[in-house]
């Protein structure tokens, strides 16, 4: 009687308290970050200029009200969102394809996988600088040089409005595609056998297996990879700053760049933080939506 009660109490502790205890170390580590966040949030409600501390005043939503109607903000918002959606969609689709490629057994698979990860091993700043050198439109640019071998005309990769958008996408994809592929590869390697056995018994074809077995099982990982990429694509900064600095003609000025210019170039902390908080809100929204999809996909998988 005693033992059963003890076990029941133990189980209640396990169910009620233990999860929180397990989460505690992680939460504690991140708790320290709350102060900087709230400080940044507070600054966004002030007109804090680093150089003019005597002007410091709490001004409520004025920063936000000032920037929202500006056409430059609206463009930045559209560009940030549009870029993120296109980039994530492209990277997930292509990333899935590559993951499937690397999932098969073939000679040299290990080396190829490690090699394929290499773009992730370069810091985004250096990647951007190297690509900038390769994409030069002067005769020193290797990319245009290669194009000329195929008889193709040179492209003004970073110096013209529209091509620069594509170039940023190329640089970003080159650096981050392995990320998506690796997550999906890990997912592929973790899938259970049973559904496949069942499908084979049912006589399903290759494509059918892919569409009705592999894809649904992979969904949580696809959405997870998409979420991380979305968070990073919305906030892409280093690549743009190192190549076009927001140009040409403000074409690649996304919200993060705007925040940077206000906060770190013009020392207008208040407005910079306002942009940063707006961007944060955007990331929050996107992740919220994607996480809801993740939950649904994860539930379906564990069924």
């Amino acid at each position: 009687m005693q033992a059963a009660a003890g076990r029941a109490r133990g189980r209640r502790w396990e169910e009620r308290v233990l999860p929180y205890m397990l989460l505690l170390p992680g939460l504690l580590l991140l708790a320290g970050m709350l102060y900087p966040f709230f400080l940044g949030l507070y600054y966004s409600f002030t007109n804090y200029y680093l150089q003019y501390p005597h002007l410091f005043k709490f001004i409520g939503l004025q920063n936000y009200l000032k920037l929202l109607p500006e056409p430059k903000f609206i463009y930045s918002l559209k560009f940030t969102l549009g870029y993120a959606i296109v980039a994530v969609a492209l990277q997930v689709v292509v990333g899935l394809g590559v993951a499937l490629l690397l999932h098969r057994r073939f000679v040299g698979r290990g080396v190829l996988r490690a090699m394929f990860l290499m773009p992730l091993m370069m810091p985004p700043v250096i990647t951007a600088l190297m690509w900038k050198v390769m994409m030069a439109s002067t005769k020193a640019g290797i990319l245009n040089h290669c194009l000329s071998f195929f008889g193709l005309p040179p492209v003004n990769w970073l110096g013209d409005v529209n091509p620069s958008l594509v170039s940023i996408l190329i640089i970003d994809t080159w650096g981050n595609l392995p990320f998506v592929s690796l997550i999906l590869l890990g997912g592929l390697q973790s899938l259970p056998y049973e559904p496949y056995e069942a499908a084979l018994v049912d006589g399903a074809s290759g494509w059918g297996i892919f569409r009705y077995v592999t894809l649904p099982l992979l969904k949580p990982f696809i959405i997870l990879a998409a979420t991380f990429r979305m968070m990073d694509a919305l906030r892409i900064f280093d690549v743009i700053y190192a190549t076009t600095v927001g140009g040409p003609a403000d074409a690649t000025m996304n919200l993060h760049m705007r925040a940077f210019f206000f906060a770190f170039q013009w020392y207008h902390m208040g407005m910079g933080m306002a942009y940063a908080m707006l961007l944060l809100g955007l990331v929050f929204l996107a992740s919220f939506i994607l996480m809801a999809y993740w939950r649904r996909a994860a539930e379906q998988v564990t069924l």
Partner: protein
Amino acid sequence: MNPQRSHASSVFPVVARGLRASVFALGIFLVVVWTVFPFAWILLTSLKQPLDVIAAPPKIVFSPTIDNYLGIFIGKQRGQYASTRPDFPRFFLNSIMISCGAVLLSFLAGVPASYALARFQFRFKEHLAFLFMSFRFAPFIAFLIPLYILFQRVGLYNTYSGLILAYQLISLPFTVWMLRSFFMEVPIEVEEAAKIDGCSWWGVLTKVILPLSVPGMAVTLILGFMFCWNAFNYPLMLAGRQTFPVTVGAIQFISYEEVLWGQMAAASLVAVVPQLILSLFVQKYIVRGLTMGAVR
């Protein structure tokens, strides 16, 4: 057709085996070219003298030199001033210490957290999970100056521990969510079996979940390590010369009157080596079949 092969060959819906093989080969070829081309360029640049680096049209054939590599390690440069005590080896060491420490800490805190989120039902579960994710939302701008102020005040500025803590912003949410997803993939029957055998939550974690999630943990480890290694903006602000990692170090080749592209390329390639070693070592754990069939 055994399930393992069908699993793998469900990739291509094409019928003919020959066509499938050539499509596959083409895919691999494209992947290799796309990945390797910029690295080939960086490698060539690291072997070039300054004159060849800026040459127009670009030079594929040139007389190589290892001066750039010598320059970053022992400061010897041809016809140039010799910097005192090139800092590159120290930056390299810093990167190793900080990245390893950050990933270790993330795993120590992340494994229990992911386990809780994956296997337990409790109030606020999804809220807390989302909270973990939310620390990765903020653009670094929002954090940089407040973090700088905070670190200076509590004496964490320019320290390994400070940077390792700051890096948790980058790696902990990622670790938690990745491990959560992989833990959830472990078949519930195995766990039930272990529990019937009398395992506590700790036993289930160490004997069932962790061994069966090795591929996932390997992936999380590699990616987490790379994220930490390649962070730039945080260490720029929160570290001093003694603790700069290689990412900040590599940018130092931009001088006021010239850019030492050769040395920058050399430094970047050398910085790739630890990550490459780690990947080669860990990728063999990203193999299915190591753990499947445990139920039977």
